[in-house]
């Protein structure tokens, strides 16, 4: 119970730290989106309900603190979580290379959805951000993701993860 009540606070802190401290690193337009790594980690380790709610809360906080369009990150994180969950049943999610590649691809998917959303909802062409922002961001977040996966595992951020749905090999 304590975990469930503390988790939203921790998630909010994560987003705050992500939007304040990590933005200090001189990476230009690139942001280190740890919240996305959390969502992917949840996709590998949590069930549909708990992982979905976690993604929804995290996306909601991202929307509140960073997004100009409320609900965009909520939808994106849910989408990525369920996409990860579907793929996790078909691949072994403990190999660092696979984690890095998959996280990088998810970052690109996120960028692509944002670009398409702006295109169809507002008629704004921000396609240039894909190679300039989202591609380098995908590389950085992808490279960092194995480390964060190990860290989350060590910290047992998700104490109820075991016994729910371990990563499976095909």
């Amino acid at each position, binding site marked *: 119970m304590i975990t469930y009540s503390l988790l939203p606070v921790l998630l*909010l*802190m994560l*987003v*705050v*730290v992500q*939007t*304040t*401290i990590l933005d*200090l690193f001189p990476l230009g337009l690139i942001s280190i989106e740890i919240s996305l790594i959390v969502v992917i980690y949840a996709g590998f380790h949590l*069930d*549909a*309900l708990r992982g*979905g*709610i976690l993604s*929804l809360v995290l*996306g*909601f*906080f991202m*929307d*509140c*603190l960073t997004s100009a*369009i*409320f*609900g*965009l990150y*909520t*939808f994106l994180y*849910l*989408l990525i979580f*369920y996409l990860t*969950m579907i793929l996790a049943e078909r691949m072994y999610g403990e190999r660092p290379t696979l984690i890095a590649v998959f996280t990088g691809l998810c970052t690109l998917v996120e960028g692509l959805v944002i670009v398409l959303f702006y295109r169809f*909802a507002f008629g704004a062409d921000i396609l240039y951000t894909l190679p300039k922002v989202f591609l380098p961001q995908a590389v950085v977040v992808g490279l960092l993701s194995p480390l964060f996966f190990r860290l989350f595992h060590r910290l047992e951020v998700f104490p109820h993860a075991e016994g729910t749905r371990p990563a499976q090999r095909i």
Partner: protein
Amino acid sequence: MLIPRKYQSIAVAAVLLIASLAILSYSTIRLSETGLLRKVVLEAAAPVEDAINISLQSLHEVWNRYLFLVGLEDENRRLRKQNAGLTEQLNRYREGHLEALRLRKLLDLKEGFPQRAVAARVIDCNSTSLFKTILINKGTADGLRVALPILSDRGVVGRIIETSWHASRVLLLIDGNSNIDGLIQRSRAQGILQGGGSAGCNLKYISRAEEVRTGDVVVSSSLSGVFPKGLLIGFVTGTSRSEGGLFQRIDVAPAVDFEKLEEVLALIEDKKPKP
């Protein structure tokens, strides 16, 4: 349960995704509205963000200050070096100024004599050894020879005892071998001034009857023809009359401080051919 267990996950996913899409669609249409939950989150996050930003700002300032101090240290080191250089330069200028003053005094002294005068620099001082001599940087090439008188701006220094082409050794008047004819300026009583080592000099052969006072000025008398008449030699520091003797003992302190001697003047009497 209405939904079979097998499809529960799909149902949850569908519900959450549809809900999020609905929120997204709603907010896209009505961009300006801020919901209650969003306000709560913003209110909760703002102080934390503020605190973090203040801390980061402080860290940034500390870092900038550190960088400033590092720069300051470099600048300080550079200024210290520059200060040392300037102090050295100032010292050289001061030395030059003092030397010029001394040379001016020597020049003034030189103009007071009919003899030709040659200024020389003291290059070695043996006044602490048994023999009280100094070495000067002028010799026979400059017209110096043995027995010439050597003066400073304060008075008589001694006489040359040996010369080479570009150096000469001067016997100071405080050396035991030095004997200079002198007289007491006030009473005109004449005697021989003999060196007494570091203690000074003794004026000998002055009659017991002669009244000599402490502080009386002793000058050269030119009886021997070495020193011109009237050059300052020293001051009487004490007198004593031993029982049964004809003369009194007179202690004389030289006017010249031989420890601080740097430049001297040699007086050259041009030898005229005898008719």
